[in-house]
């Protein structure tokens, strides 16, 4: 067990900035293992490192990766997750 692991709550503000809405209660499906859960269940790694890595709480594969650029914009890779819109 990693005592440094956090859940997506810890980056909820950043996710709101990136996606333009509160994301932690969004329904999602992991593209790797099919796990259906709210975004809030994703495990957060590296939030103080080069970028934020969010992983599925079941299979631990990467669901979302974010890098904040110096100009304040974000690089987003959400290829590991299917997000329900609305």
């Amino acid at each position: 067990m990693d005592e440094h692991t956090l859940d997506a709550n810890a980056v909820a503000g950043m996710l709101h900035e990136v996606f333009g809405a509160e994301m932690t209660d969004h329904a999602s499906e992991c593209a790797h293992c099919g796990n259906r859960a709210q975004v809030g269940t994703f495990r957060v790694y590296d939030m103080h490192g080069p970028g934020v890595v969010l992983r599925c709480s079941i299979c631990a594969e990467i669901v979302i990766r974010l890098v904040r650029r110096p100009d304040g914009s974000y690089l987003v890779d959400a290829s590991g997750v299917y997000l329900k819109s609305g």
Partner: protein
Amino acid sequence: MSERLVTRGFVGRRGLPERGNRTPPGQYLTTDFPVLSAGPTPHTPLDKWSLRVEGLVAQPVEWSWAQFNALPSREYVVDISCVTKWTKLDMRWHGVSVDTLLGAVDLDPKAAFVIAYCDGGYTTNLPISDVVNDQAFVAYGYDGAALAPEHGGPARLVVPGRYFWKSAKWIRGLRIVEKDVPGFWEGFGYHNRGDQWLEERYSGD
């Protein structure tokens, strides 16, 4: 756009940036050693662990944990800089020079780059010229003790001349290739080379 609100009395836990010989541009000194990783800490049992050098070599080489520990090794005292702006001076590591590892294989004439690959899937890439002549080592000791798993143990790559994301934790092998392959962060916004003295932080810098 409102003007920036300065918080009375807030300085932050950092040293003043030193323009001078030891702190790279844009960095602040710290005495911490934060735990940063892109994924859960792997726990490969030592009897299953190995380190390989493979790819554009005449014959790949693989060391077991015991064999790796028996290789010539030494203490390294180096400064480390993370792209998130902290620099830690005089970090004491113990490990095996990458020269020793590459010296165990015959490199193909086309060999130009090294891809370090790790438990958990992390990768980082470096030109061979950046890791030879004692510019890089594989560390298994830190500060007089065995390298802790949360800091990359049993063994991690350390490249002091590059931002710390290149010092790949939980390293399991070096793949020698002809064409460069951007690693985990290099392929996602970060600079391919990462020289902290030239402030090569982001792609496009």
